[in-house]
């Protein structure tokens, strides 16, 4: 259901007429009385002492210019460069992902926080659209893929949460996502939280790090696919069971039935229904499954993603965020009301 408050505002916007001419033409009381502005003592003085005023201004300007010219020689400036450190960002939509960012603000690695994120990150070409980009750009690419695959419906009010350990990187990424939503005409909010190292590790499930550098190194060392991290150290039997949990086998069977009815080749899909016997087979099948899922979701949600929506003006977007904050107390509370999902990194 489209957000009812937005619907209400749209209804009123679309049905109410503009201001009537008689209202527009009604003179304001001060116009009627011939007084546009209140009396101003300075203005009265200026009207009679213009030459003296400009002479005074010229003298002041000359003095200021002289002092400014001498200042660099008297007090050489010492510009302190802000200390750059690596950082990390955690984006939750469902799907969820962690981005490690180097000291220059460039994404070094992106790892999936859950199996749905694997659908996006299963292909190296998509990863390359994210890694090597600024946090502001790369995070937006991930959000856009989430929207293309139907995980984020740009046509209904929604929210994403972005947490980070460095406020600058976080703010830049938040700003990027907000611009993306406005340009797409999406009433979606970015809930953002600056976390301590310990809080970040607790939220993501990543092993606690002593400093930002260690955290980033931990993230970089992880397999970017959630489904493959889950399989690490498991026996063949456990891997079979894991495959059954991650792959929507019943849904695949339904799709196969429809495809057979349409006379389409189902060989590849049928192979995915068979449980893997080894870890190697698991890896191969899970990759194929996510690639197939990516294509299927891309086609399924193409129309919704491509729907024309008017770009949202900055003031309207800010007003929308304010309305959410009024309704829920804070954006974090809004996020809590939408989801209580927890993602764990292993």
């Amino acid at each position, binding site marked *: *259901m489209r957000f*009812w*408050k937005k*619907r*209400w*505002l749209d*209804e*009123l*916007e679309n*049905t*109410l*007429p503009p*201001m*009537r001419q*008689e*209202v*527009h033409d*009604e003179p*304001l*009381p*001060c*116009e009627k009385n011939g*007084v*546009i*502005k*209140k009396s101003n003592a300075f203005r009265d003085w200026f009207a009679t002492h213009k030459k003296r005023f400009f002479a005074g201004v010229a003298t002041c300007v000359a003095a200021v210019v002289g002092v400014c010219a001498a200042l660099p020689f008297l007090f050489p400036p010492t510009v302190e460069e802000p200390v750059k450190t690596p950082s990390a960002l955690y984006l939750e939509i469902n799907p969820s992902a962690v981005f490690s960012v180097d000291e220059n603000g460039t994404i070094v690695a992106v790892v999936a926080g859950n199996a749905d994120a694997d659908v996006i990150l299963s292909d190296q070409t998509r990863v390359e659209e994210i890694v090597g980009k600024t946090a502001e750009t790369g995070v937006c690419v991930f959000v856009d893929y989430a929207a293309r695959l139907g995980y984020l419906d740009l046509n209904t009010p929604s929210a994403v949460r972005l947490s980070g350990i460095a406020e600058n990187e976080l703010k830049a990424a938040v700003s990027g996502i907000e611009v993306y939503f406005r340009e797409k005409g999406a009433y979606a909010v970015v809930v953002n939280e600056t976390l301590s190292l310990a809080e970040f590790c607790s939220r993501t499930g990543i092993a606690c790090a002593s400093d930002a550098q260690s955290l980033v190194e931990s993230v970089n060392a992880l397999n970017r696919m959630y489904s493959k991290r889950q399989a690490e150290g498991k026996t063949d039997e456990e891997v079979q069971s894991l495959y059954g949990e991650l792959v929507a086998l019943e849904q695949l069977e339904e799709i196969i039935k429809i495809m057979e009815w349409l006379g389409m080749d189902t060989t590849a899909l049928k192979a995915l229904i068979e449980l893997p016997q080894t870890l190697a087979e698991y890896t191969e099948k899970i990759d194929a499954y996510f690639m197939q899922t990516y294509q299927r979701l891309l086609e399924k949600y193409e129309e919704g993603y491509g729907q024309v929506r008017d770009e949202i003006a900055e003031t309207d977007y800010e007003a929308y965020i*304010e*309305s959410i904050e*009024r309704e829920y107390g804070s954006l974090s509370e809004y996020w809590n009301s939408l989801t209580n999902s927890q993602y764990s990194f292993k």
Partner: protein
Amino acid sequence: MDRLEIDKLLKKTAQGDNVAFEELYKRTNKGVFAFLYTYLHNYADAEDAMQTTYLKIKRSISAYRVGTNGRAWILQIAKNHALNEIAKNKRLVPLDAVGEIACETPFEETGVMRTLERVLNEEEQRIVCLHVLWGYKHREIAEIVNSPTGTVTSKYKRAVEKLKRALKEEEK
């Protein structure tokens, strides 16, 4: 609707800035209309009253004290006009007669305005309007309607639940 913004626009209007007045209209007309509608229950009358409200705002702008509550001032003008109209025309329309007027409204039958009318009583409509369109906090609304804050909060929540349920039904 930001209270400070409204105050700023009223101040500029009082100084003779017609552009500020137009901006004020743009920012507040939806809230004024929706508020008047809760009294008049009729699109044509509410629209008429809305235009007259802005006319009255212009005519009495010098009476507005800058820094006081601009929202409340505008709503007071609107409310007084609505009550005068009701008394003058004796057209206090009972809610169960809404169906007869449906043909006079450009709002969709399954839209939010019509649903608001159908499922909420006048007080609930006003509470929802003041909170959603005017940005009043529950405790501020409580002062306006002379009720405890808790009562306003629970009425608002119930009203929104009823509204959402009704809108969901209509979408099916």
